[in-house]
């Protein structure tokens, strides 16, 4: 589904990604771990198509198609979703209105008509229930005055509504207490199926107790320096990142 080959990317002339290789297939959950500043967020941002990041070498293929010429919204229309570490506040636009706008924009991008209102309503109710979101929450302004947990839950709600093929969850666990973490993880697990894939980006192993990865990759200094199974995450948790740094010094 996602094939990243020898990806080098920079922002403001500074090279952050220095040759990433990654293959994500349908039905898989990948975790990308690594110390702060290793390039984790950059990787997700580049895949999602931020204009400020320049790909200097290598390629990102999604379902066989080269993404390099596509804008962020076009990538979204293809089925790539990025859950933000710091979602943006939009006063005056409710959660419901926002998700309707996003869904219909995506449908338009895919050459489809607007989703009928009753279908939309049904879907919103269903997905809100999945994430234990009440209706009052849906009529609040997007992310305005939301707690950290509410913001993340709202991100996963949007993911649930948009039903992406590939969801990249960037530090979705940061700022979450254990109850909120369980709700978010539970939501992700329920949305998971054999046709879609999830890439979880995290500093800590904690989230991976709930969203169990098939593969764990360690990103350090712009490269994937180690790949393994869930056991690698436990090893990192036990030893910290220092041994990775030493090995790659």
């Amino acid at each position, binding site marked *: 589904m996602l094939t990243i080959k020898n990806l080098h990317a920079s922002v403001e002339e500074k090279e952050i990604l220095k040759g990433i290789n990654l293959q994500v297939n349908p039905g898989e959950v990948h975790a990308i771990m690594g110390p702060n500043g290793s390039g984790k967020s950059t990787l997700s*941002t580049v895949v*999602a*198509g*931020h*204009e*400020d990041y320049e790909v200097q070498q290598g390629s990102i293929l999604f379902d066989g198609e080269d993404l390099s010429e596509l*804008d*962020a*919204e076009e*990538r*979204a*229309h293809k089925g*790539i*979703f*990025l859950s*933000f570490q710091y*979602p*943006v*506040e*939009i*006063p*005056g*636009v*409710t959660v*419901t*209105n*926002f998700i*309707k*706008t*996003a*869904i219909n*924009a*995506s449908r338009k*991008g895919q050459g489809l008509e607007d989703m009928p*209102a009753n279908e*939309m*309503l049904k879907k*919103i109710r269903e997905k809100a229930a999945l994430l234990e979101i009440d209706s009052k929450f849906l*009529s609040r302004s997007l992310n305005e005055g939301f707690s950290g947990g509410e913001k993340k839950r709202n991100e996963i709600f*949007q993911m649930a509504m*948009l039903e992406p093929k590939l969801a990249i969850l960037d530090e979705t666990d940061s700022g979450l207490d254990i109850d909120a973490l369980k709700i978010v993880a539970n939501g992700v697990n329920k949305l998971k199926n054999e046709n879609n894939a999830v890439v979880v980006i995290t500093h800590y192993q904690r989230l991976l107790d709930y969203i169990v990865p098939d593969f764990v990759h360690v990103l350090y200094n712009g490269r994937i320096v180690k790949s393994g199974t869930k056991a690698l995450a436990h090893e990192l948790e036990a030893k910290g990142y220092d041994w990775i740094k030493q090995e790659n010094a």
Partner: protein
Amino acid sequence: MELKEKLLSSFLAMEQEIDLSAPVHAMRQENLKTFEEKGFPTKKLEAWKYTSLASILQPSYSIFPKQEASLELKEVKKYFLYEIDSYKVVFIDGVYSPFLSDTTHDGLDVCLMSAALTKPKYKALIDRYFNQIADTQDSLSALNTAFAREGAYIYVPPSVVAEKPIEIIHFSTGKQGDFMLQPRSLVVIDENAQVQIIERHQSLAEHSVFTNAVTEVFAEKNAQVDVYKIQNDRHDASLVDNTFIAQQRDSNARVHTFSFGGKMTRNNLNFYHQGEHIQSTMKGITIIGNTQHVDHYTLVHHAQPNCESHQDYKGIYADRAVGVFNGKIMVDKIAQKTNAFQQNNNVLLDDKATINTKPQLEIFADDVKCSHGCTIGQLDEDALFYLRTRGIPKKEAKGLLTYAFANNVLESVAIPALKTRVNKLIAEKLGVNLTHDL
């Protein structure tokens, strides 16, 4: 003939028709003299540094209507807040339209300036209030006073709460050719009384319109007044709105100005504090493009202790549009414990759009809280990226973010139907398609 000469000779023509012995007429003559001496303001004046009237003064305006014009309700219904019940004072080409209006004398007076200026029963109030706070040294206000004959007259007696808003609408039909309008309104809200007013100037066809309006508002003790100005006129209509508000103690006056249209709009909004514990609020949203020009020139004169003023203006400028914000706050020595807040935030959507923003604080008291701030920026790139990752195309995403930027000014709009209407207007201006909540 130049507009100034035309106005001076038109004044002589008007004198043939009116009662020259009325005390108001002496005022008219005096104010005409001021206008004659000063003429139209030019960019040489500090207060008009960023706004030129030169092109506005070019057309050959008719000063008085040449022919009677009428309108069908269905032609203009959309300009009214028809969703709710309201009093209406409507003028077509400067002439009162009894057909489109809904005035009253039941509990409060919502009627015509022409009646108030001539009928004996209004004399005491006219003597007490008319032209008492309009700036007689300002040439445009003086010009309006010289020609003051028609507009809205509103009197809300003590402790009366107007049960529905009052809409004041001035239509210009184009049937008079290029046309100059000088409406003059007086609003008196007596002790403990309350009223909400919605004002609109609307041109209906291709022709140049130049409106030079003066509104005087008197909020007596503990009175409450809301004024909403909807400025969404055609591209060939220009407006100078001179509003003067005098407040007595414990009164609360709020003015919201929504500037979305017109060729050139200048809002001179002045607050004078004449008692303690007064609250004054000025809020504005400006959304313009092309070569449109909107200039907000506000003054709050804190002349008494323990008063508050609050200004919050947001501006969104596209293409080659020009915005001006000049917020003057004067705090007299006596006005201790003044709390004055001023904020002006702007977004420039294009390289050629301009905003000139200037706070002007003159503070002579030492125990005051005055804060001001202005920002000029582009949209937050990260926010834009966020929306785009949700599949929202760049243009729509920009619209949504500018909508969010402007939208919080609407929170204090106290008429829900109006809030919805303005909300829709903003969404429309910014190309945002927001369906209603389920």
